[in-house]
């Protein structure tokens, strides 16, 4: 099966400052791939580059289609959903409105309603707060909401930017468990950016390590996890 995401020679820049230099990686269908690295390595920029939210060069093929140069909205409509860092929820709107917005581009109303129910089943706490303003939710609940909103798109590819950030370990564990289930049951491919390397390596099948805008190491996550040198030098544990 061809790769879902094929990135070649990706460059990205904020104004005059180039952040990504000639990045290559792939993501196979149904897989979870992690992008690791220290602060400032360019992880978030990589996700933004895929969504075309930043000036990019090079080639990004999503399911064989070139998406460099498209608008963010167009990329989303192809089936790429992102859970941005900081959750990105619409804080002044209700939980239910946030979910509805996640399905904005879909036309199948009945299925959308069903998906909302499934989101509530998966995260009962969201159901309790369905009419509350999203901004009043706790960090963990907002993360659940952000993930659910992204899933409302029924995306082929889910991008997650630092889902563990600022959350208590128990909540993080629960969220990662749910992400694994989503990947296994609904075959949603995921590209995960994480600073918490051990968590990411437990979840992902494959991992890339970014160092100041370039890929330093890549390989199956089991291999990277077991490589002591890599762990000590790059991942700090």
């Amino acid at each position: 099966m061809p790769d879902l995401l094929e990135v070649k020679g990706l460059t990205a820049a904020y104004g005059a400052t180039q952040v990504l230099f000639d990045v290559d990686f792939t993501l196979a269908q149904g897989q979870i791939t992690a992008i690791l690295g220290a602060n400032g390595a360019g992880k978030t920029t990589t996700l933004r580059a895929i969504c075309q939210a930043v000036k990019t060069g090079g080639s990004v093929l999503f399911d064989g289609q070139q998406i460099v140069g498209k608008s963010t909205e167009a990329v989303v409509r192809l089936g790429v959903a992102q859970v941005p860092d900081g959750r990105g929820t619409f804080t002044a709107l209700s939980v239910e409105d946030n979910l509805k917005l996640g399905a904005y581009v879909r036309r199948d109303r009945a299925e959308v309603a069903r998906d909302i129910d499934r989101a509530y089943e998966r995260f009962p706490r969201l159901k309790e707060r369905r009419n509350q303003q999203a901004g009043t939710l706790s960090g963990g609940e907002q993360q659940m909401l952000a993930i659910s909103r992204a899933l409302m798109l029924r995306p082929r590819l889910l991008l997650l930017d630092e889902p563990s950030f600022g959350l208590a370990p128990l909540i993080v564990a629960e969220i990662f468990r749910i992400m694994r289930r989503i990947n296994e049951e609904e075959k949603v491919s995921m590209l995960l950016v994480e600073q918490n390397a051990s968590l990411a390596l437990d979840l992902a099948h494959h991992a890339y390590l970014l160092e100041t805008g370039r890929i330093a190491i890549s390989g199956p996550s089991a291999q990277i996890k077991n490589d002591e040198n890599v762990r000590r030098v790059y991942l700090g544990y």
Partner: protein
Amino acid sequence: MEAFLHQIFSGLANGGIYASVALALVMIYQSTHHINFAQGEMAMFSTFIAWWMMQAGMPYWVAFFLTIAISFAGGLIIQRTILKPVEKAPVLTNVIVFIGLLVIFNSVAGWVFDHTIKPFPTPFPKGSFIESRYFSAHEVGTVLVMLCVLAVLFSFLRFTPIGLAMRAAAQNPESARLVGIRVSWMLGIGWGLAAAIGAVAGMMVAPIVFLDPNMMSGILLYGFAAALLGGIDNPWGAVIGGFIVGVLENLLGAYVIGTELKLSVALVLIVTTLTLKPNGLFGKAVVTRV
């Protein structure tokens, strides 16, 4: 007592018009964070279009709704063509472009429709509604029309998917893009709605002040005052602000400072609000990041 009540009702009728102008301003501010200085002239131009259609024989309500549709389209087109290129430009650039629009609308109106003052018909002539010593049929009609406009707008924003998308795009454009909302088009629709609302305001006020290219400048000022008073990012505030300004203007004009200085009331209100309570009565506090 009678005169006092009349001032209040008349103030409420005017207030309805100020509320609509304020609402249009807030709509644009909420989505684009810019104040549309050309709002008044756009409304005036729409009213001229309605007048022209009626001169050509069209019945009032046909011209009315057609004008609303044309104004919506016009607002949308202006945002998409003239404003989009300067979307990300500094405030001064945008202000200058707005003033440019103001001036163009004003001069083209004068050129096409000339500067003689024209009467404009009201759909609520004497006797069509319950009238009294306190308010004329037109004043009642104005308030009703404005309330309808508000109801329609509110329902649209609250209950339709596009309305939801517009609110989302105004609050958080980045996240809106991430769910596939074409944020730029949402801005265009916001402009279209503002233009349409402005058109209604113009058509409601023209029977009272008569139609000429400079008809809306004073009303725009009151609209500004109302929008600021209510909180420039709060539609409900704009509406309440409008009615407050309307009544205040009339009462102060009748009992305190005389009718000649009414515009100064708006000026003082604006400066005071901006100095003492820049967020208005109902707005959210604005925090600037360093």
